[in-house]
């Protein structure tokens, strides 16, 4: 009985996490407390290169094409594939390299926490005090 309950709670947790809200996180050195949708697109497209305090913007991406990644890019109006095309253009025109793609959301959390001027995205339910949340994406 206990096992069944456990399975059930895990299932519920999973199902919640799959529909989870996404948090846009930044390194604590970032002075901005919130960013808009269009600012997010400009940040990820490489059109905004510096934060308010002059630190360079360092964006991070996830490697796997999972829901968190898809939902994040669709929130800013692009597909992951289209983002790559944008990055490829920037790269060819010498405006900057594509972001590092990290394996997991936990990696994202820890990398953002220790990289100055970093910005990334993870599920809302895994964030902690090591980073600051500058936007929450709801379904």
């Amino acid at each position, binding site marked *: 009985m206990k096992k069944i309950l456990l399975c059930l709670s895990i299932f519920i947790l999973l199902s919640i996490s799959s529909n989870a809200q996404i948090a846009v996180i930044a390194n604590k050195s970032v002075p901005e407390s919130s960013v808009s949708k269009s600012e997010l697109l400009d940040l990820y497209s490489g059109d905004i290169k510096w934060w308010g305090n002059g630190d360079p913007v360092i964006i991070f991406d996830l490697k796997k094409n999972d829901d968190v990644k898809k939902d994040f890019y669709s929130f800013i109006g692009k597909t992951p*594939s289209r983002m*790559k*095309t944008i990055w*490829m253009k920037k790269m*060819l025109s010498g405006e900057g*390299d594509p972001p590092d*793609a990290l394996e997991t959301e936990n990696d994202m959390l820890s990398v953002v926490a220790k990289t100055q001027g970093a910005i990334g995205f993870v599920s809302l339910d895994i964030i902690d005090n090591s980073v600051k949340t500058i936007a929450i994406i709801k379904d």
Partner: protein
Amino acid sequence: MKLSNQSLRTKQLIGFGAILLMLILVYLYSIKKMSDLNDEIIAVSNNWLPRAVALSELNNNTANLRISQFEHAYTFDEEKMREQELEMIELIDQITENIDTYEKLKEESEAQNIYTEAEKNLYRLFTDNWEVYQDLSFEFFVLSRENKKQEAIDLLNNEAKEAALIGGGALEQLVNLCQQESFDAAQRAEKTFRSAKGFTTIIIIGAIILSLYIARKLVNMILRPIKQLRTAAGYISKGDYDIYIDIENNDEMGELSESFVHMAHSLEEAQNKLVQSEKMASLGQLTAGVAHEINNPVNFVLSNVNPLKRDINDVINVQKKYEEVIKYHNLENQFAEIEKFKNDLDYEYTLNEIDKLLEGIEEGGNRTAEIVKGLRNFSRLDESEMKIANINECVDSTLMMLKNQFKNRIEIEKDFSEVPDIFCYPGKLNQVFMNLLSNAGQAIDGKGKIIIKTWNNDQSIFVSITDDGKGMDENTKSKIFEPFFTTKDVGEGTGLGLSISYGIIQDHNGSIDVKSELKKGTEFIISLPNKQ
């Protein structure tokens, strides 16, 4: 609800309604088919073909990007590399545009439910590989920038090659699929067009045949009776009224034919009546003249007979006086010669014969006077004023006069209805009834029965007198109203009774008809109009 019983109007409406219905059907069907056709054409021109174009351009551009990457890898000149990078940016822009175009069309066809699962899977295969290829391109550019040319070329030739081949293959298949689909749609359109063409052609031919048939039928329905009427009219103009028209349909033409036949019969009847009354009128004039001419000499004869009798009597008396004187004076010897002369002459017989001759002259004169009177009656020379009278009473008064004559021999059966009073010449009508009833009585040998009926409708009063006597043959019946026609022995009838009756009834604007069968009896029917 037989069609032949409907009016021409209904027949026309049904016929043309059927044609109209067929044409509307054709119209609706072709509209439907045309819209199907239109959908197919729109699908081909607005969707599949542009999709195929976008896909094949996408395929070209991705292939060109790869070629440019190779060129980039083999180039060491910085400036040239810069140029190639600009070219690649252009290619990437084009690829983005191609993908945008395709995805927009894809959404449209998804909305129309014509986007197939196969296409969806192939496109996903392409996007997945394109993403992989982009990731590899990042690595390639980094290697290329760091002048690790060989490693860059290896990357292109190995991992990137696989993604490019799969993605390109997917695109080629997609192009084929779209072409196939547009081809299928075109074929469907052609099929639709053919079937619609066939169907509408059949229905239109059907409608034409039907309209020809209906037109022919309608023309026949009108033309046939008209031809018959024309033929019949030809017969009538030649005086043959006994026409026959085959009435097929109970429509307006049928009614026309019926009225035409009816008209022909009425015409015949009217003509017969006209001939009869003309005959009667001229006979009337003739007899009026004759009666007038005979009346005077007959008057001479009749008015002279009595004085002549008296005169002859006087002469005889004178002669008797002579005889008495001779006898008284005994002068017989002197007058023996006269006596002898008397014996020679058979004087006694002469005296007797004078009486008989005078009687004969008187009777002949009286009979002639009677005939003249009859002729005058027939020619209607003596008209008095009209009076209001009841026909039943007229008949009754006539019967009173005949009562004695019929006595026990003839039974009278009266079947009178309450008929209204009319304006008439009662005395003359009495004469008619008298004539008909006495004729009836004479037609019966021994015992028999006379039935008298009266009735009326809105226009006329009718009197029928039926006997069960010897009846008449057709020949007799056709002549009974002619003056001087009689079946009685010479001297017994003048032959004027019925012709006088005929004239009287004519004077009343009425009619007299006769039905008779030999050995069964005769019926006279008089009709008199209610209003004179």
